[in-house]
């Protein structure tokens, strides 16, 4: 049809309004063929809305959506070669597992026998063959999730949409299913569009992530980019834990900005185009990028008093009061227990970071 054959779903300036409430504001994004693509954002930011527009359950108010080059706006859902794994699975409660999985094939005109045969194969894929005759209510949450997956995969859709498919599962099962999902995506080569509001899940599973907030796109990129180079306040705060501090930029030399923290403390960070001298902006430093010492080091070093150590298993979180300046949270991995000292509450310590660990943010 056209040249973008490697683009599976192309959302162009899509706007969605409910009455006078705008749920999505001019979203544009291209999702590549074979990609594990994640929509990440807080509750109510419009993730489901976007997914439902692609699936055909919501009209596009403005803009257009292309599927492998074809506009799909006028196609009703049952004519789109796109399948969905629903958040609560939406398994048909009155049908057996096998009939659930075969339903889409039957609707596409397969004979009952053919549908069952193919459905059986899909159940093999998700390792549920022995549950074929059960009703969905007789399965555990994780098993139901796999049935939903098999059902959506059975008609070999071009794109698979997954709306928070793991959010109803408990932690252990969730981790296991993450691995399984990723595995199946690689095996089938189908483009996955995955919705979650769990950052860790997004970081672990995705090829690329689109971070959304309040109906608009905040940042699109690979997991590492998004974690380590958040483009703005929202992304920095939403993804992972961070120390967010208000700073004023005192000087900029050679691409390095000297920032004032209050309480007489100063830090140097990489300058950002949008931020000039004299402006007050936010700065973000990840707690794991900080380390403590009893003497100032050659790198950036700020003196403070330890308030509390909190043991969280893999790590210890230390809260430091910089006196008159802000509080800092420092994360020390347990793997460093041999090399790094843990400071008791009340003792003085220096907070250190390597140059470039702190990032200035636009709002």
């Amino acid at each position: 049809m056209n040249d973008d054959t490697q683009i599976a779903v192309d959302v162009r300036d899509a706007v969605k309004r409910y009455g006078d409430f705008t749920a999505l504001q001019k979203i544009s994004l291209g999702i590549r063929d074979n990609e594990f693509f994640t929509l990440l954002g807080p509750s109510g930011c419009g993730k489901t809305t976007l997914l439902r527009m692609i699936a055909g359950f919501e009209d596009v108010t403005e803009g257009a959506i292309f599927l492998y080059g074809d506009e799909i706006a006028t196609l009703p859902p049952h004519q789109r070669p796109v399948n969905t794994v629903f958040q609560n699975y939406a398994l048909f409660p009155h049908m057996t597992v096998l009939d659930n999985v075969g339903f889409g094939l039957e609707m596409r005109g397969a004979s009952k026998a053919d549908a069952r045969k193919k459905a059986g194969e899909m159940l093999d894929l998700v390792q549920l063959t022995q549950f074929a005759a059960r009703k969905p209510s007789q399965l555990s949450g994780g098993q139901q999730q796999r049935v939903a997956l098999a059902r959506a995969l059975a008609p070999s859709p071009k794109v698979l949409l997954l709306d928070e498919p793991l959010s109803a599962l408990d932690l252990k099962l969730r981790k296991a299913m993450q691995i399984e999902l990723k595995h199946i995506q690689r095996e089938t080569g189908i483009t996955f569009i995955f919705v979650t509001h769990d950052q860790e899940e997004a970081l672990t599973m995705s090829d690329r992530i689109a971070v959304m907030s309040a109906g608009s796109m905040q940042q699109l990129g690979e997991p590492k980019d998004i974690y380590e180079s958040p483009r703005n306040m929202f992304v920095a705060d939403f993804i992972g834990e961070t120390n967010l501090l208000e700073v004023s930029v005192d000087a900029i030399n050679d691409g390095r900005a000297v920032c004032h923290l209050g309480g007489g403390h100063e830090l140097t960070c990489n300058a950002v185009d949008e931020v000039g001298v004299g402006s007050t902006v936010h700065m973000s430093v990840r707690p794991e990028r900080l380390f403590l010492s009893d003497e100032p080091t050659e790198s950036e070093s700020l003196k403070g008093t330890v308030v509390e150590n909190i043991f969280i298993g893999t790590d210890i979180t230390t809260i430091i009061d910089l006196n008159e300046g802000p509080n800092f949270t420092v994360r020390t991995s347990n793997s460093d227990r041999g090399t790094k000292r843990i400071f008791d509450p009340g003792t003085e310590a220096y907070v250190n970071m390597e140059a470039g660990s702190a990032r200035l943010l636009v709002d």
Partner: protein
Amino acid sequence: MSAKTDVKTYPGFKFMTLLCLVILYAPLVVVTVYSFNASKSITVWEGLSLRWYVDVFVGPESGKFKQAAINSFTIAIVAATISTTIATTAATAIVRGGKFRLRTASLGLISLPLMVPEIVTAVALLIFYNSVGFTRGYLTILVAHIAFCIPFAYLPIQARMQGIEDTFEQAAMDLYATKAQAFRRVLLPLMMPGIISGFLLAFIVSLDDFIITNFVKGAGVETLPTAIFGSVKQGLKPNIMAISTMLLSVSIVMVTISYFVSKSDNTK
């Protein structure tokens, strides 16, 4: 969402809904409209008039209707009050009494008046009163009404109570309230919307009952439905339409109150 893409919308369903409303309301509208007809004949429209409303209060049958209305309302109030009280205690036992052997039997007994066809209940009561020698009159109607109103009062109360988690009473007892205090200070206020709609339901059901009342009523003790029936049997007259319209208004007021009460959900 356009109808075409919205999987929830079915063409024609809206039309059927409107049709349904027309069917439900047409007879009531006719009655209401004709109650304002100046003509004595129901078939001829002679202009607007309140004459039949006046007739209800001062016409030749006004005495009969007045007495019937007094009977109907006093029976409905007393029956609804007693049956609601009984239903409240029964619901407390069934919803908050744990598992026990007679639970299913009790539920069955309470739903019995709903399951037995009304004509059967009516005839059964007639035979019963007759053979134990109760003289039929005001009291026999009242007792019958109390009995068959119980399930109607019970249903909303039970539904309401099931919606109230027992942690509320537990919290009260945890905070040093005795069981009786927990019931009075916490459970009862929370159940109130259910109790009120149960009361209203029972009230209307009692006010409305014809079949059973007709069998168990005594000589000359009429309720509005039996009085209306007596008159209606000789043809639908405009004064009956006026009474019906007034009763309709009472019902609407009651249902409206019950609707708003049950909407004021204080557990959220």
